[in-house]
């Protein structure tokens, strides 16, 4: 079974530039997550999709971050304009999303962003 795919693996940009990350979840997984992991910290949830609808985006800085999940499969996370503090690893994860208990989250390898 293929895992969660993310690209690009690494990206270096200057502040005020824009960047986009792409995620392809495990086939059949209804729930997709974007987490931000700043160096030395644990992953922080930015946005959660159930199929193509947003379930939770309470911690997404909406003035600069946007995300979409077209057709309930792939997702893109965009940052525009980037700030220095956006330097982090952006992790995509997916789960079956069955009702009831929290299921296992399967993570991608992450996209490491450096903002100069």
């Amino acid at each position, binding site marked *: 079974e293929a*895992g*969660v795919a993310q690209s690009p693996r690494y990206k270096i940009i200057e502040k005020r530039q824009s960047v986009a990350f792409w995620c392809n979840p495990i086939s059949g997984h209804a*729930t997709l*997550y974007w*987490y931000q992991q700043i160096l*030395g*910290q*644990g*992953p*922080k*949830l930015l946005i*959660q999709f*159930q199929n193509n609808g947003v*379930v*939770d985006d309470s911690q997404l800085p909406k003035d600069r971050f946007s995300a979409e999940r077209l057709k309930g499969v792939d997702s893109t996370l965009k940052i525009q304009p980037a700030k220095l503090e956006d330097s982090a690893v952006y*992790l995509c*994860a997916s*789960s079956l*999303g069955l009702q009831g*208990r*929290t*299921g*296992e*989250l*399967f*993570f*991608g*390898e*992450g996209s490491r962003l450096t903002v100069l």
Partner: protein
Amino acid sequence: AQRVTQPEKLLSVFKGAPVELKCNYSYSGSPELFWYVQYSRQRLQLLLRHISRESIKGFTADLNKGETSFHLKKPFAQEEDSAMYYCALGVQGAQKLVFGQGTRLTINP
């Protein structure tokens, strides 16, 4: 609000010694607790969850609701246990996880 605290950022023990990684949580609902692990150059993956009550790679963790803790334990550490360990809290009905800051475990030969 939900919160997970891992008080140790770094933990170093010798091979064969017991290991305990601490995790405390703050949550008003019915907690679901997990341990995720990230080995060097690998992706973050599930190690164990409290509802399973099973031992994975020799690790166990017991949910103590009175102390709001979910410490990860292993009686005899092995070098391959060196990794980054994250405790995570499942938010009831929300299908999402809140992570602690992680503990880097190093097993010395």
